[in-house]
């Protein structure tokens, strides 16, 4: 045996193992203590409110994990120290904050915030926060979680999404929208493997768009809240985002198979159903946000050691992408 001399006495082996355990425990404890010291505190309070004319986002650098804001004009100081969120969106005097609280097991929540960014309602969830949207009026909220479970729940390779819709006026909550009657290719479609994500609401707070995936394909669906039906409009469109004038949908389109840079941002004209690629050539895995009728914002993996950056690009496919907020994600423009 090359690993151990067989003649090593039991006593010697026990002493060596105890010594090794002590060293390894010291390493583990030291590293953990240092990690505790550099931990960012979690905050639920906010040092600012939802004011028109600001771009809100989740900071990933100074005050990491908390919402911050900039004047919409693009110039002016960054105001830090909003609520702690993993994903954030705000419109019409309502903000939606998806957050995780550590514990055994960790818990997730969707927290509804008022225009002062104070908590109004909290919904307990499972999974990893992924998408969050608020309708222009602030009435309809939707969020998507990745249901992974942890290793207890039979392996992590089975990612599925769980999308909820909350009507803040009536308080009605659809915890998981996958039971919505779906029409695909003109026929009522049944399959247990349907997954929805990335809901975006129209101005009437009734019509919405979302992604449905089934049998390895994704579709853009148009939904109706009151009738509670959904209808597939076209294939290969994920994470739709409706323009403020409600005429166009920005989405990510799968342009390559596999996992290497699969998505590009496109804009679909809902009247002609014609799509147009945007000037952003990099892989975008985000539900884009419209800053106004001509500009889209989205997060990309950060440069220079930053986790994520917010970029903008013109919605008509012209121009060039621009770095808007370094060290940030979850953009939302409050008008």
């Amino acid at each position: 045996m090359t690993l151990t001399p067989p003649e090593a006495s039991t006593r010697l082996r026990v002493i060596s193992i105890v010594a090794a355990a002590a060293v390894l425990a010291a390493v583990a404890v030291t590293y953990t203590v240092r990690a505790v010291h550099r931990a960012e505190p979690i905050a639920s309070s906010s040092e600012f409110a939802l004011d028109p004319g600001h771009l809100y986002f989740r900071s990933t650098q100074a005050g990491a994990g908390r919402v911050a804001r900039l004047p919409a004009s693009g110039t002016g100081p960054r105001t830090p120290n909003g609520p702690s969120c993993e994903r954030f969106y705000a419109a019409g005097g309502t903000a939606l904050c998806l957050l995780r609280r550590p514990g055994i097991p960790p818990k997730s929540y969707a927290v509804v915030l008022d225009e002062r960014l104070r908590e109004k309602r909290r919904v307990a969830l499972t999974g990893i926060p992924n998408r969050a949207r608020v309708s222009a009026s602030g009435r309809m909220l939707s969020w998507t979680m990745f249901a992974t479970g942890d290793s207890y729940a039979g392996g992590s390779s089975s990612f599925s999404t769980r999308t909820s819709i909350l009507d803040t006026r009536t308080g009605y909550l659809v915890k998981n929208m996958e039971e919505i009657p779906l029409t695909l290719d003109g026929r009522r479609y049944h399959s247990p493997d349907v997954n929805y994500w990335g809901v975006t609401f129209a101005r009437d707070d009734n019509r919405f768009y979302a992604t449905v995936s089934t049998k390895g394909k994704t579709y853009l669906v148009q939904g109706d809240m009151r009738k509670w039906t959904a209808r597939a409009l076209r294939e290969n469109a994920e994470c739709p985002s409706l323009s403020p004038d409600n005429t166009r949908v920005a989405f990510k389109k799968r342009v390559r198979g596999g996992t290497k840079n699969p998505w590009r941002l496109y804009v679909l004209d809902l009247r002609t159903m014609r799509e147009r690629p945007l000037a952003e050539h990099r892989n975008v895995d985000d539900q884009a946000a419209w800053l106004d009728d001509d500009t889209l914002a989205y997060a990309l993996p950060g440069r220079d050691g930053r986790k994520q950056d917010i970029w903008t690009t013109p919605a008509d496919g012209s121009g060039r992408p621009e770095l808007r907020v370094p060290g940030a994600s979850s953009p939302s423009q409050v008008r």
Partner: protein
Amino acid sequence: MYLATTDAVAKAKDKKAKDKGGDAGKGAGRGKGRGRVTGPVLALGVVSLVTDISSEMVAAVLPLYFVLGLGLSPLQFGFLDGLYNGATAFVRLLGGYAADRGGRHKLVAGSGYLLSALSRLGLLLAGGATAGIGAAIAADRLGKGVRTAPRDALISLSSPPDGLGRAFGVHRAMDTTGALLGPLAAFALLWVTADAYDAVFVVSFCFGLFGVLLLVAFVPGRAALPVAPPGPGPAARPRKALTLLRIPAFRRVCAAAALLGAATVGDAFLYLLLQRRLDFAESWFPLLPLGTAAVYLLLAVPVGRLADRVGRRGPFLAGHGALLAAYVLLLLPTGGRALLIGVLLALGVFYAATDGVLMALATPCLPEGRRASGMAVLQTGQALSRLLASAGFGAAWTLWGIGAALTCAALALTVAVAGGAALLRSTEGTPAPAVPAPAPGAEDPHAPPEKPHAPPEGTS
């Protein structure tokens, strides 16, 4: 010196003595008889416990780390994770083969443990690089694939034939304890450090390395194993592991395991069904498998002992009966607490009565020098057929709905249990060391020399 031991142990020793040319002294202290678990088994149990803490810590936080820590797409993680599951089958066969070559079980298993431990550092150093993370996950899977069969072979080689069920039961109970503690440790760490994933990786690495050191210090190496010296030659290729299927008893065990595996719906499906039926708070969902693991943990040793006393075939089949009971419970209109407790209990019994017991069932069919290869073949066959079952069940669910799919699964399992009972009928009719070895040289001109040459019966 054989008079003091049970008959079966005596036979095993006698056979070994003949195999090793009369060198019986090395194995003499090994068979302590029924009722005692040997040192190597306990050592391997502790190694597995510590290693499972390490690996389950990482497994529990990896999706979170990937999506929230790095801001990467869950899709990519799903791909990365699924990609390597298939590859482990081949690696497992390779690990079994490498271990059998000259009895290098400890070295091969140790390399597997070390590779998995080092993969934590890989995760730490990879940062946000997808390729680096992919390599680290691959290294972890590689390590897990390589070490499983040699480890189980070591357990079988370090235990008396009439104490195998208990030995595997003890090992599996310790293994499951580690798997339970790992996620708890990881979540506690994330809690105190406010999501410092790197701290989880470092602590996991420390546990993993400690497991390797424990193995090095306390698990016996080649010198203490009752395995013949290396038998290299043109015949000793990994492919040749499949020639073990020429042993009729082993072939039957493999066939039964594969058949029953093909009717075994994945746990994840059952938990999902349970959650749909009961509609309890989603935040409790991740805790369901804890219930199963707790039952498994408590029953692994008693069921193993029972298997030693009444034969391993009965508990193995009864365990699948428990799985069938879980299917039926989910089909019945029962609800509430009775359904929840019933299903978790049945699943726990299923694991306790089948996982380690299968290894104990297969051990007597395999020549000592080819244990690891044989176990690798058996485990791979079972894993592949279970994969097939899950895919089939998913398709049936999609096509026909959940009620019909579950009814199909229940029928398939009933047929499989009947088939398994028929296949295993003759396996245990003969005493444990009755290895129906192929006539030397008849089937395989390059037959490795470690195959038992002595007639197993009438030697004591």
